[in-house]
Every structure is written in structure tokens, then in C-alpha cells.
């Protein structure tokens, strides 16, 4: 058995790691998986960067940011495996949501109209809306900025974005310190359940296949330990398949509900897993079948174009100076080569390419695979833009805001 320590945050999308440990998928690969819970992204990052854990359940933009030296101690990180796509909600206090489309399903299904309704309501509110985000370098924050800007709202000028840990969002709503927030599940649902918030947007309607958490290693450790890395990835692949099976969702939500993991009621956790999101307390759920994906459609495959999309947003919001060097280093954080090596002898379908145009698919599409068959789901951004990784500058210049 090879001991591997992985840091994680108590969120629904730690599912694949939890299943790998609790359902024996890691053990089958002779990996003794030790999951170390962190209470903040800063601590998770430090434990990885300073070598106290071998890998981490990390926000994909944070892995890019640490590599580019934007978040404390610079360190080259590598993400050979995506732990999920999608899985977040944007929620707001009922007072605020009152200015939006009252039918929650309609509201969630038309993010562009909702963003414009929100833009119109801002001026009527008694203060600049304060929206909680979990981290500057989070997919949540990038998606929220993208969504606000689509209606001409400047995220650094017209609203206040306040960084808070997901576990303190509900308390901050109760104290009136924030008017809404965006976080990974189950925290949006937790605020909805006590009547403090309503869902106003779901990440899967903003970018239908939005990059979210990755398994991040320090590049030097990953390259010095190819064999254990490959075994861990094979264990995670089997765990991810198990997580995506509808008949396992109740068991999975009960595992995640444990004190050592998410420590929230399994009923709340199950909402994200089944894609049945209660948008307002007491209402029947809205069906969002792609609310979070773990395995199907080759979800874990780290498309380099997705790392580059993150880079494009960091440039757009002036979090990094654009340069050919930064672009190359950001793109290199995602490591499809390691994914291919680790799963070479398995029956996991394997994409033939490592980059694609993001946001171009309106309907499911079968793509070229080295093995098996892969159908990619629709991956549109709600405003219809497509991201061509070969034309990044043009893509960034195409946005009106800022």
C-alpha cells in the first residue's frame, strides 16, 4: 500500500475522493488514501505547496494562480484529473430576488434575462449589493463576474465582492453582512432551506460544462512519483464512475454527510447530486440534470483549453499581466498527458485531442476517441460566446465590460 495524503474542503464535490476512500476504489489500487480536511483554501494551498500533503481538491483557477505566482508562495502545480464540472449556485436574499423573474425555473433557465433584471434592480437598492464569493481565484468568482458583466454590471465597481468561507456564508446572510453569495453545494441549498436566500443562477446554466475542482499536485512531486500517481488516478476514475450512477446517489450523500466530510444533512447534499434543486424554500424542485458531473462525457479529462479559459478570465479582470510566458504556464497546469498515461490500460474512453473550442456545442456530439466512444454534452456559455484557445486576445477584446 502506498500512503497518499490529499487535502480537501468539506463540499459536495469532494465526492470522488470520499468515494475512492470509503468504497475501496483507492485500496484496490494499493493506495492508502488519507483525506485531510482543510477549513480554508489558503490552508489547503499551503499544505500542498509546503509538502504536507501530496495532492489537493483544488479550485481550478487557484491551481493556475499559484503556478503564476498570484497567490502567496509561487509553486508549479499540475492538474492531471478534474474532480467534477459544475455544481455551484448563486443565491440572493428574498428581498433582492423580489426584483427578478418570480418563476424560479424560468429565472434559472435564462441567466441573461436574470442578469439584466438584477442590473435594473441595483439602482433601487439602498446600498451597493454585497455578494459573498469563496475566493478571488475560484470558478464561482469568475462565473459570477462573467454573469454580472453580461448585463453591464462592473463587478469591481457596481457591487462589492466579499471573500468568505462557504461555511460562514449562511451566518453572514443572517447577520445582513451580505445580500447574496455564490458557493459550492451544499451551502447555497443550506441558505435556501432556512429561508435566507433564493437561487438566482446555477453554474450549469452559465457555462453548461464549467471547469470546477481539480486534483492538483506539486509538479515536482508528481513527476518524481509516476507510479503512485497513476494508481491514484485509476482509483479516482473507478470512484467517479460509481459517483455518477443514479442508484448510488443516496449512499453517496450519506457518506458525504458524515462529520469528517461535509457535515451537513444528506437531504441537502442529495439535491445537487440528483440535480433537483429547491430554488425557494417550500417549493417543488427545479430539474437541472447536469447540475454536477463526475465521470460521464469524459468529465475528468483535463482539456488544456479549459486552463486557458481560466487564464483568459484572469487577464480580463486584470489579475495577471498578459504574456506568452504566462499563457504557456497557465495552459501547462492541465496535464492530459498524465491522464492518458495513468488510464492507458483501462477501458476509460480517451479523447484524441487535448484542446477544443469551449462553448461551441449546442447539442451532444460524438468526438474522436483513441479508445471507446465519447459523446460530449452541450457546453455553451449562456451568452453564446465561444472560446477558441488559439485566439485568446481576440476573445478577451470581445467583451464590453470592463
Amino acid at each position: 500500500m502506498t500512503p497518499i495524503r490529499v487535502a480537501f474542503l468539506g463540499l459536495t464535490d469532494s465526492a470522488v475522493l470520499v468515494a475512492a476512500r470509503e468504497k475501496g476504489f483507492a485500496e484496490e489500487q494499493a493506495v492508502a488514501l488519507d483525506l485531510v480536511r482543510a477549513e480554508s483554501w489558503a490552508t489547503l494551498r499551503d499544505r500542498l505547496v509546503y509538502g504536507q500533503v501530496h495532492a489537493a481538491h483544488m479550485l481550478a483557477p487557484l491551481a493556475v494562480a499559484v503556478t503564476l505566482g498570484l497567490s502567496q508562495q509561487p509553486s508549479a502545480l499540475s492538474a492531471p484529473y478534474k474532480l467534477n464540472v459544475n455544481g455551484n449556485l448563486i443565491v440572493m436574499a428574498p428581498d433582492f430576488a423580489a426584483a427578478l423573474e418570480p418563476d424560479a425555473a424560468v429565472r434559472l433557465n435564462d441567466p441573461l434575462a436574470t442578469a439584466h433584471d438584477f442590473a435594473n434592480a441595483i439602482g433601487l437598492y439602498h446600498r451597493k449589493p454585497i455578494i459573498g464569493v469563496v475566493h478571488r481565484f475560484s470558478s464561482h468568482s469568475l462565473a459570477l463576474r462573467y454573469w454580472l458583466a453580461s448585463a453591464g454590471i462592473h463587478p469591481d465597481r457596481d457591487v462589492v465582492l466579499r471573500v468568505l468561507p462557504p461555511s460562514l456564508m449562511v451566518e453572514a446572510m443572517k447577520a445582513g453582512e451580505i445580500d447574496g453569495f455564490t458557493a459550492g453545494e451544499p451551502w447555497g441549498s443550506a441558505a435556501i432551506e432556512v429561508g435566507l436566500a433564493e437561487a438566482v443562477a446555477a453554474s450549469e446554466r452559465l457555462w453548461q460544462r464549467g471547469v470546477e475542482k481539480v486534483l492538483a499536485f506539486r509538479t515536482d512531486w508528481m513527476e518524481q512519483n509516476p507510479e503512485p500517481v497513476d494508481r491514484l488516478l485509476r482509483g479516482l476514475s473507478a470512484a467517479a464512475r460509481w459517483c455518477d450512477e443514479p442508484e448510488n446517489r443516496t449512499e453517496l450523500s450519506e457518506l458525504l454527510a458524515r462529520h469528517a466530510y461535509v457535515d451537513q444533512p444528506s437531504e441537502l447534499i442529495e439535491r445537487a447530486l440528483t440535480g433537483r434543486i429547491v430554488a425557494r424554500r417550500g417549493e417543488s424542485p427545479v430539474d437541472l440534470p447536469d447540475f454536477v458531473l463526475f465521470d460521464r462525457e469524459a468529465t475528468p479529462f483535463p482539456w488544456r483549453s479549459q486552463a486557458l479559459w481560466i487564464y483568459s478570465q484572469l487577464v480580463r479582470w486584470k489579475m495577471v499581466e498578459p504574456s506568452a510566458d504566462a499563457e504557456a504556464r497557465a495552459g501547462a497546469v492541465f496535464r492530459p498527458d498524465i491522464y492518458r498515461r495513468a488510464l492507458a490500460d483501462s477501458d476509460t474512453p480517451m479523447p484524441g485531442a487535448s484542446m477544443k473550442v469551449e462553448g461551441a456545442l449546442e447539442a451532444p456530439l460524438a468526438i474522436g476517441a483513441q479508445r471507446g466512444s465519447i459523446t460530449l454534452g452541450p457546453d455553451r456559455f449562456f451568452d453564446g460566446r465561444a472560446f477558441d484557445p488559439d485566439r485568446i486576445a481576440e476573445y478577451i477584446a470581445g467583451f464590453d465590460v470592463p
Partner: protein
Amino acid sequence: MRIVIIDDSGARATVLEEGLRDAGYDDIHVVPPRGAFVARLERMAPDVVLMDLGNPSRDTLEEMLTVSRALAKPIAMFVDQSDDSMIGAAIDAGISAYVVDGLRKERVKPILDLAIRRFNAFARMQTELDEARTQLADRKTIDRAKAILMSSRGLSEPDAYALLRTTAMNQGKKMVDVAQALITASDLLGGMS
């Protein structure tokens, strides 16, 4: 040198503060990480910020350090990035430190050394306290079980104790577990307890 300790456990902050004062630092402030603590911190313009590594508000603090215009210079994690052993010791002790960029290493190192020692001492104290509490609770449980045996089987106190101990040894269990099982069974049977 202004040092701010961000902590919501009064006891740990006090232990750390006392240590720093004993070492001759006198500009020390303790700020609990609640509400608008970031604005308070910004007004204080500290040279060194110490915070528990397990505190969920670290991301909030780091965001302030990134965007603040009030602080003249960016603040960096740990003293010297090359000093791996100190960083390891700090993480083991559960402490994170932010230091104004440009502050000389020899001025900061003693503070961090002291914080590491005090955090470790505090953790040891916690463990000892927890152990003492557990021992006390165990003794109470065993006393109750003894009383049940004495009254229901007419045993003397030493015999009741010996019976519990022999049973535990024969079953490969801890004495407190056998005692607890006996109390539960006795309660279920409506016996005296």
C-alpha cells in the same frame, strides 16, 4: 513593531500574547475574526499578523492583503520562503503568519519562533486537559458500575472492582467499556443505578 493576533479562542490568544509581552513586545492586539474584522485590521496597519492555520477566515484575510491600499506594501506568507524547516514547524504548530514585505528576517524570526512554541504548548495543554477530563469521566462510570455490583450481588468494593477488571481482561475490552455496558444493561432491566 505592531503585532496583531487574529483568534477567536480567547485562551490561545492570551497564551501567545503573554509570551510576546514577556519577550519585550508591547504593541500587541488581539482581533477576533468576526464581522468587519478586516476593516479594523486595515486601520491598525500591523507589521506582523499571526493567525491559526485552521481558521476558516484565512481566505478573507488574504483577500484584504491583496486588495488593500491602506497597507503600504504587500504582505507575504512566512518569513523567508527558503527557510523550509521553520515553515514546516509553523504548519505543524498550526500557525500562519503574514509579514510586511521588507521587514528584516532577524526581526521577525524570534516572533515566529515564539509563536510556534506557544502554539505547541497550548496544543499540549489542550490535550492534557482533554485527557484529564476523560479520566475523570471514566472513573465516575467505573464507580457507578461498582455500586451496581455491590448492591445487586452483595460484593465488597474491592471484589466489585476485581470482577470488572477480570471481565474486561477476559473480553479484551477496556474497563470503562465493560462498566458502561453494565450500567446500560442495568438501566434497561430497570435495576438500580
